[in-house]
């Protein structure tokens, strides 16, 4: 099986590695232990499956075809297909040259934590600060992991974490690794390529009271389909009724509409409505700090007196995992967000990045219409954020990958940042071919 085939298999079957003592795994390769010398305890360690998303990126990197296009990983690219270092970040780096590299507190930089909570919750936070706890985390993944561990430990046994269908594949992995059960709620409607709002509400009503719901703040990954503000209000009504706990996954604030406050609507709504809730923030995309692993976990309680206890437990979990978080990325964010000029520059750059994505969406739609590609492609401009769920089928994806060296996920998810004026036509040609030849 090629790398990408294995990847597609994993996504199709929604599999993460089930660890069993017999090590019966599809992709298992038995090592040829020919040495017969010092016995090894690891002779029967099977070869694990490649991560569905990062595996595609690996395949792209290995491809030598000059026409290749990478629309797999959710990382921003500029008009020339290059990673973009934000000017506000570069200026902040200049100021940090030679700075001491002492250990941070276990929960990270206090100023960073305050700024992060303020960025997400805005004025909705006023008066509630003392019953909120924020810890610096290893980007969104790290925040989710620490939050889910906390949920497993302190929510009633049997609490289930509900994740949208589909969602970022790592959500289920994180639950599994943390020893908590995950389930799905309806979300994406393949027929409309939009939100299955009725299905979503029905599943929320059917779930046992007090379940956790992982909600994407904005720019849903992978579909790009977000509820409207009105729909968010209905969601909040139902969740209030059922006493559900929102866990906001906030990886794209500022990236969806270009407006930080607009994008944060849902989190502020839940806070204003009096929920006890969680949020996982990532600065990977909106600050371009992907590899610096910069993020924050916030938990909101109804009471102030439990906050110090909660913080102490969070710190214990962090201490046993990695002791304290890395300084660099958090310092960069803190430097920018505490400087009004740098913040203004950041807001401008955020608008430019999200603006370019919106522009790409329009151009892709125009190119598909111009070629009269069969089907309705409006969803490409109706969806929002970095990704679009194109609706391409597996055989069609295969044509894009194998014939045209255009890398996207087997689910049909395209990361639009990988497209630009130089390759949109090529992409549209490929889609035309893929759609017409599989009819």
């Amino acid at each position, binding site marked *: 099986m090629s790398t990408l085939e294995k990847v597609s298999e994993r996504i199709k079957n929604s599999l993460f590695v089930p660890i069993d003592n017999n090590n019966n795994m599809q992709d298992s390769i038995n090592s040829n232990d020919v040495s017969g010398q010092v016995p090894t305890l690891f002779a029967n360690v099977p070869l694990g499956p490649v991560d569905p998303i990062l595996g595609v990126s690996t395949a792209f990197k290995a491809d030598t075809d000059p026409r290749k296009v990478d629309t797999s990983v959710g990382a921003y690219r500029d008009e020339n297909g290059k990673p973009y270092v934000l000017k506000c970040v*570069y200026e902040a780096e200049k100021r940090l040259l030679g700075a001491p590299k002492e250990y941070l507190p276990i929960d990270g930089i206090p100023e960073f934590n305050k700024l992060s909570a303020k960025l997400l919750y805005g004025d909705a936070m006023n008066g509630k600060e003392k019953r909120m706890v924020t810890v610096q985390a290893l980007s969104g993944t790290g925040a989710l992991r620490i939050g889910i561990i906390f949920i497993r430990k302190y929510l009633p046994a049997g609490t289930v974490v509900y994740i949208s269908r589909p969602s970022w594949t790592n959500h289920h992995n994180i639950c599994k690794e943390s020893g908590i059960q995950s389930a799905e709620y309806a979300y994406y409607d393949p027929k409309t390529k939009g939100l299955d709002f009725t299905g979503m509400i029905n599943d929320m009503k059917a779930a046992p009271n007090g379940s956790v719901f992982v909600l994407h703040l904005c720019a849903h990954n992978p579909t790009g389909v977000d509820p409207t503000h009105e729909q968010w209000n209905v969601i909040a009504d139902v969740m209030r009724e059922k006493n559900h706990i929102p866990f906001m996954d906030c990886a794209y604030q500022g990236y969806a509409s270009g407006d930080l406050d607009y994008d944060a609507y849902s989190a502020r709504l839940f806070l204003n409505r009096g929920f006890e809730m969680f949020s996982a923030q990532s600065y990977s995309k909106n600050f371009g700090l992907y590899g610096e692993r910069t993020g924050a976990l916030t938990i909101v309680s109804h009471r102030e007196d439990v906050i110090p206890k909660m913080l102490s437990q969070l710190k214990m979990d962090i201490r046993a995992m990695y002791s304290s978080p890395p300084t660099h990325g958090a310092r960069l964010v803190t430097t920018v967000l505490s400087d009004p000029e740098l913040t203004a520059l950041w807001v401008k750059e955020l608008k430019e990045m999200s603006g370019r994505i919106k522009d790409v969406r329009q151009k892709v739609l125009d190119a598909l219409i111009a070629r009269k590609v069969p089907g309705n492609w409006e969803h490409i401009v109706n969806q929002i954020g970095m990704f679009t769920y194109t609706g391409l089928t597996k055989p069609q994806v295969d044509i894009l990958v194998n014939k045209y060296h255009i890398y996207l996920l087997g689910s049909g998810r395209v990361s639009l940042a990988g497209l630009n004026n130089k390759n949109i036509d090529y992409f549209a040609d490929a889609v035309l071919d893929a759609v017409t030849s599989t009819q």
Partner: protein
Amino acid sequence: MIRSARLISSVKFGQKNIRQFSTNWWANVQKGPEDPILGVSIAYNKDTSPSKINLGVGAYRDENGKPYVLECVKKADKKIYEANVDHEYAPIVGVAAFNQLAAQLALGEDCKHIKEKRIATVQSISGTGALRIAADFFARFLKGKTAYVPNPTWGNHNVIFADAGIPVKSYGYYNPSTCGLNFDAMSKDITAAPEGSIILLHACAHNPTGVDPTTEQWKKISQICKERGHFVLFDFAYQGFASGSPEKDAAAVRMFVEDGHNIALCQSFAKNFGLYGERIGAFSILTESPEQALNVESQLKILIRPMYSNPPVYGARLVQAILKDKELTNEWRSEVKGMADRIINMREQLVKYLKKHGSTRDWSHITTQIGMFCFTGLTPEQVDRLANEYHIYLTRNGRISIAGINSTNVEYLAKAMAAVTKDN
């Protein structure tokens, strides 16, 4: 994974009404204990006395009591800044060039395992992160095994293994009456451990005691581990920092590899590169074959992805920039030797002043122990007196961080220690 929301509607939550339910989520959250090590810094920071001394956290301080950013690190930092590199995701296993350099630094460039690709190395969140990956990996692939750590050991060892679900026992190590190694107990306990147990060894500069086995003693331990089929895990947080020579400090690790142990190795670059807060480390497992190394690596990736996806790049880039450059590497070598030499010098000064201020105790262990830490032999009560009467802060097990000592405060410290141990 449950696909239908209806599946678990039968789960009972009791008859609590909704309002009570929603306010009681965190009522059963106990306040956790303050971390003992980092707690010392908190107490020190609160103290307003001008003569206060912090002998708590194991972070190097220079002659003026200030954090020390290595010159080679500053240069590497500038290089990276001027290159305007992006902040793209590292692969799950981290920066490949860094992984290679880290393994070579520990195991030597001639290491057969590296040459033959019989090693899986992943970048980790410093030493703690490496240990946690190790523990999670063992929990999955060495099911049922117990981990043996020295008594005493770094407090976080126990917690890391516990959170990964691995039972922990200890083997004899420190002899309080000699302030040295209890080699008999160490050998006996490691021998008695069930076959195939996980044995955690501090590669050098044992934390918290500063007591290391001799070469002959290491040889014997290696032999015992072989006979008992034990799995050896090295915690290597002080390469270069102990003796001043990275090669000397790697001697035990390299001896075990020579002897045929396919070890697991946890490296930290926090102390020896002064990169504490950047969380840079590496975790390696030596294997029988390249295929096995790939298998192991693939499983490590599966553990890492749901923990933090991929590691932070900044620290890895700094170390890589230094170790791939001959000049910067030489500069690093002389700087790490400088740090080690200052520590060694302070040990000697402390003993000198203890004698000068009339202490008749045998303090020779202060100079025979090695590395950042020293197990003074002070009791918890004496430690409390040092804090309350002299504004000198250390952990209650009597461990001092020598890095907190300098020529300005060494005599004051000696006087205080002499005073609180006077009648014992």
